[in-house]
Structures are given as structure tokens and as C-alpha cells.
């Protein structure tokens, strides 16, 4: 374990950082492939988010526990093998729980292995911090990733199919905006979310600037 700091505030900070300040999708732009590919419905987005969070959590735990035992030279290869092991588990798990979901997500479950976000967390956080902090951080980043996927999935499903979680929202006269569930929609919706966040950040900067001048 690392430093015995007062845990309460610290842990909350680490957790929230993953969701907002260092959101893997909207801020760091990591792990974009599944973000764009499997978010055509809300349920797919949720499943993908949970599967990725599970792999992230388990690999963080193992990497953090083994961080003194892994030689520096082969650490990346070791992390990849650890991640691949958990991904294989998730792959068989989803296949057992729901074959329908498994077919909808397709190869993207196995492609969690090459999600740069997981390797990035293992390298930059779990290999340098104790078990407790690594777990909290992995939960935060996982939650941030799942939230981002849900943001995309919900918008795309509502616009592209007129449904939410499979229930129709708008009545029979709604003409679905089909392109939103097709590949281009993924690019457009994510682009719009990024625009929104950039706009919010600029507005916040302007307000702080104005306040400083007013004082």
C-alpha cells in the first residue's frame, strides 16, 4: 500500500476524476473503436461498457498486486497477456448469458484486448499504485467509459430507431433517422458531444476570466 492519506476525500477524487476530468472517451479520446461501433442501441452500449469495466477492474487488481514481481522489460507483454486472459473469460461469459447479445456485439468483445484505455490504465496507474487506489481508479474510469457509451447509445437509438431500450417513444408517425444507427451516425454523434463539451469548457473559461477582471 502507498501513503496512508485520509482516505475519504482522496478516493472520491480519484473516482470522479475518471468520470469527468479524465473521461477516457470525451477527454482522453482512448478506446474509440468500440465507442463508435457498438453504440447503435442503448443495451449494446451498456453491455459493452460493463464488459470493459470488468476487464479493466480485474486487470488493474492483478497488475497492481504483481507490480513488484513483473520485470520492467517485459511489462507490456505481461499486461497484454493478463488482459487477454480476462477478455477470454468475458467472451465465454457473455456467450453463456445471452447469445443474442453476443452476436450483436460480434468481434468487439474479443477486441477489448486492444482497447488502449485498459493498457493505458495498467501502465500509467495500476503499475504505480497500491491495490486500493487502483481499484477505485479502475471503477471511476470504467464508470466514465460506460457513461460515455450510454450517452452515445441513447442518442443514436432515440434518433435512429425512435426507441429507448427497445420501447417505442414517439408513436407510429415518427420517421426514424436511419443514418444515426449506421456507421456515419457514430462519427456525427460523438463529434456533436465533443462540440458540446468544448463549448461548455470555453464558456466556463470565459466566466472565470470575467470574474477575475471584475474583482
Amino acid at each position, binding site marked *: 500500500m502507498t501513503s496512508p492519506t485520509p482516505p475519504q476525500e482522496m478516493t472520491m477524487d480519484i473516482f470522479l476524476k475518471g468520470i469527468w476530468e479524465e473521461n477516457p472517451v470525451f477527454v482522453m479520446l482512448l478506446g474509440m*473503436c468500440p465507442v*463508435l*461501433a457498438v453504440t447503435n442501441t442503448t443495451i449494446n452500449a451498456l453491455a459493452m461498457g460493463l464488459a470493459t469495466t470488468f476487464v479493466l477492474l480485474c486487470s488493474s487488481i492483478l497488475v497492481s498486486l504483481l507490480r513488484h514481481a513483473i520485470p520492467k522489460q517485459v511489462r507490456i507483454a505481461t499486461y497484454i*497477456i493478463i488482459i487477454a486472459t480476462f477478455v477470454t473469460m468475458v467472451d465465454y461469459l457473455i456467450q453463456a448469458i445471452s447469445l443474442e447479445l453476443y452476436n450483436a456485439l460480434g468481434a468487439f468483445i474479443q*477486441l477489448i*484486448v*486492444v482497447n488502449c484505455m485498459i493498457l493505458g490504465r495498467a501502465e500509467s496507474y495500476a503499475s504505480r499504485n497500491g491495490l486500493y487506489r487502483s481499484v477505485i481508479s479502475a471503477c471511476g474510469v470504467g464508470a466514465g467509459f460506460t457513461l460515455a457509451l450510454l450517452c452515445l447509445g441513447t442518442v443514436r437509438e432515440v434518433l435512429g430507431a425512435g426507441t429507448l431500450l427497445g420501447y417505442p417513444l414517439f408513436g407510429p408517425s415518427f420517421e426514424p433517422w436511419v443514418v444515426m444507427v449506421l456507421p456515419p451516425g457514430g462519427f456525427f454523434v*460523438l*463529434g456533436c458531444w465533443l462540440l458540446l463539451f*468544448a463549448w461548455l469548457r470555453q464558456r466556463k473559461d470565459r466566466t472565470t476570466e470575467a470574474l477575475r477582471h471584475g474583482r
Partner: protein
Amino acid sequence: MAADSLTFIFLNALVINNFVLALFLGICPFLGVSAKLTTAFSMGLATTLVMIISSLCAWFINQVLVMFDLEFLRLIAYIAVIASAVQLVEMSMKKFSPALFRALGIFLPLITTNCAILGLALFQTFRDYNLAQSLVFSLGAGGGFILAIVLMAGLREKLELAEVPSIAEGAAMTLMLGGILSLIFMGFAGMGGGG
């Protein structure tokens, strides 16, 4: 065209189901290394090279794994092969073209975590391609990757001269461009069946 003819497999991977624009594989380098045309092209070439090597190796490994009934090791075996192939390309590039090696920088080792390469190996396994089909498939996918990243780099170089609203600079703009390119590539969908 029959669905398993070599021409169809090539065209399918190249444009109809373009790896980047239709299947969302390899988005990270597509967004990250597409700022300059020359760098983008060499990145595409390096990725294609790794694709061809790892596709061939993955085919042989799959034969061995199926023979010994060890399919659950497939993912780990594939990723190990890809990592070694990337190492190989990296070493040869360092020897034969140090300038290119420096230009690609951190993105060269990151080819390992390019999902297009693992995706290629997994798809060819799912579809039971034979050796020739795998080779053609990897050539098509590599060509498609080069096509997408070069198109994107060309557009972004032109946009350098345009006045973009400050909130749309960077990733948001690139994603919008990707969306438009993807719309264009949907036009090819009429050429053949899905999958």
C-alpha cells in the same frame, strides 16, 4: 461474383466494408496520425505490412490450435504474434529508414493495439478463410486502411487553411470529417452483400 471469390474478398475489405469507415476498426491512428499526408501514408504502409505478416502467422497458428483443440488460447496467441510482428517492423524500419522511424514516433509500437489488425485475424478465423483468401483479405484491409487514412489526411491538410470555429478545432472536426467520409463509403454498399 461469388462471395468467396478472391476478387470479392479483396473489394469487400477495400471499400464495401472498409475497416475504418464501415467497421470502426483502427480509429485511434485514423484520428491520431492523420494530420500530415506523408506521415499518414507511411503509417498506412507500416500497418499494412504488420497486417499481412500477422494474418499469415495467425492462419498457421489457428491450424495448430484447432488440431490440438486449444481454441480458447486463440486470443492470447494472436496478440503475441501481432506484438512480435510490430517489433519486427519497428526494428527493420529503424535500420532502413531512421527518418520515418522518428516521424512515426510513439504510434509505431501502438500498432500493436490497433484493433484493425486483431480484427483482421479474428474475422478470417470466423469466416474460415484458406491461406490464399486470408492473404487477399489482409491486402484488401491494408489497402482500405491506407485509403481511409490518406483521404482523411488530405482533407485535414486543406482545412489547415480554413477558419474553423474555435470549439470545433481538433477531434470534433476530425470526427465530423470521418462521418462524411463514412457516408460516402456507404455508397459502395450496393456493390455486394454484407458481412
